[in-house]
């Protein structure tokens, strides 16, 4: 840890003792959230999320292709994340590193494990032809908590996704005019808690993320079930903190769900 980070950490810890944060928020308070859907007309679905200064755009493309051999009766979901080089002075162009792969896989798990997309309805011909849903997360500005912002943008973009109608004529798939909504069943919401000292906070921004011991993210569905978890960071959680974080995530997810009307 550099000397500057050490001083920052001390300052943040002292503030947390007084139940406040560098940007004046309460410990369990999110930054201001803005959501815009359908901003990319070329994409079948899209959404932009602003979480404080963190900005993420998700675009959805739906294409026809082959299903996986072990799931012939299901469509395919693919999630990818790009940390665009201008999003942070620390980002560099190049193939996806472990951070962007982890981000993509955590977003993927929330969508997949909650069974958000009704993949059985994406089958055109079992074992041969299905719809593949490509979820591409583009991080445009990094100011902390990419997991929550990306998961939110991905779910919002999927809710906004239209796919072309088709019919099968003499064994050939023909696209018809008009669109229908991508069949969805659930809307998971992901909430991340960071641990600094012995305090838990939600929605860490970049200054907090840099000094945090560890983070833990929970994807929660509308029935309050947990669908995916990921712990990250170089530190640890006490078991009681794990359970506390789960409760915080459940409550915060409920609160966000009300706000978003999902």
């Amino acid at each position: 840890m550099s000397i500057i980070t050490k001083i920052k950490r001390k300052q943040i810890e002292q503030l947390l003792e007084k139940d406040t944060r560098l940007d004046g928020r309460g410990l369990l308070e999110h930054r201001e959230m803005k959501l815009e859907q359908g901003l990319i007309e070329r994409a079948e679905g899209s959404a932009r999320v602003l979480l404080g200064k963190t900005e993420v755009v998700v675009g959805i493309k739906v294409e026809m292709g082959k299903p996986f051999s072990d799931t012939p009766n299901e469509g395919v979901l693919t999630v990818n994340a790009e940390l665009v080089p201008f999003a942070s002075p620390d980002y560099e162009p190049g193939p996806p590193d472990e951070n962007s792969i982890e981000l993509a896989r955590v977003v993927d798990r929330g969508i997949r494990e909650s069974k958000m997309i009704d993949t059985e309805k994406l089958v055109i011909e079992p074992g041969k032809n299905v719809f593949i849903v490509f979820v591409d997360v583009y991080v445009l500005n990094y100011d902390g908590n990419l997991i929550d912002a990306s998961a939110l943008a991905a779910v919002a973009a999927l809710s906004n996704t239209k796919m072309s109608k088709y019919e099968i004529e003499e064994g050939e798939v023909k696209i018809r005019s008009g669109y229908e909504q991508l069949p969805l069943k659930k809307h998971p919401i992901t909430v991340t808690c960071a641990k600094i000292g012995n305090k838990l906070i939600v929605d860490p921004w970049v200054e907090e993320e840099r000094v945090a011991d560890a983070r833990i993210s929970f994807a929660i569905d509308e029935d309050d079930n947990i669908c995916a978890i990921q712990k990250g960071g170089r530190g640890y959680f006490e078991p009681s903190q794990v359970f506390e974080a789960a409760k915080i995530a459940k409550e915060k997810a409920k609160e966000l769900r009300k706000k978003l009307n999902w």
Partner: protein
Amino acid sequence: MNEKPEKLIDKKGLRLDGRKPDELRPLKMEVGVISNANGSAYIEWGKNKIIAAVYGPREVHPKHLALQDRTVLKCRYHMASFSVQERKSPAPSRREIELSKVIRESLEPAIFMEYYPRTMIDVTIEVLQADGGTRCAGITAAALALADSGIPMRDLVAACAAGKIDNTVVLDLFDTEDKAGSADVPVAMMPNLNAVTLLQMDGILTHEEFEKAVNMAMAGCKTVYAIQKEALKTKYVTTKGEEESKEEEAEE
């Protein structure tokens, strides 16, 4: 390939491999299996067969990665192409890259990183045969390899998963249960410090089931930890015994 079994738990409450819900698979650990490495361990966890080895602290490559206040821990989790039913490409998959990251983060809290600034420690985990729960088995073996290498540690790291099959929370899922079950919760912890260093989950669990699964997995970690200690003793107590008898002979 394998058909999905209809029932994962029979009428007697036993699982497909005959285990009770809170029973671990048979575990075997051996320390010091790779003579070139600074530390190493082999683990057989059910049908999982995994080797972990440690090199370092040693020079950092590439140099610019070096840190002034602590060592750099590098971790590579890799599955052999023949470790699974259908051949896996030996190139690192996205899953392996993610697992390498979370495994590194599960081991780092146990190491006194600040003792070795401007150096690097390499941990390599090679899965020779996989049968579900390889990340937990890999972490368990890697912690043993680190201890074997003599790097000062706050505690060992032991790992174990719990999950949900047929509406029941069970310990230590094997491959078939993992694929057909409804949730998997791998946990790694430092048992003496009561600190969770890895926690992941996929599937669907209520909060009550989640708490039950984590508690069950932590109890599993403690059993795993006892076996880890035995494995270390087996190597070092025997070595110590041999040295002592040599000394006695010399004295005579």
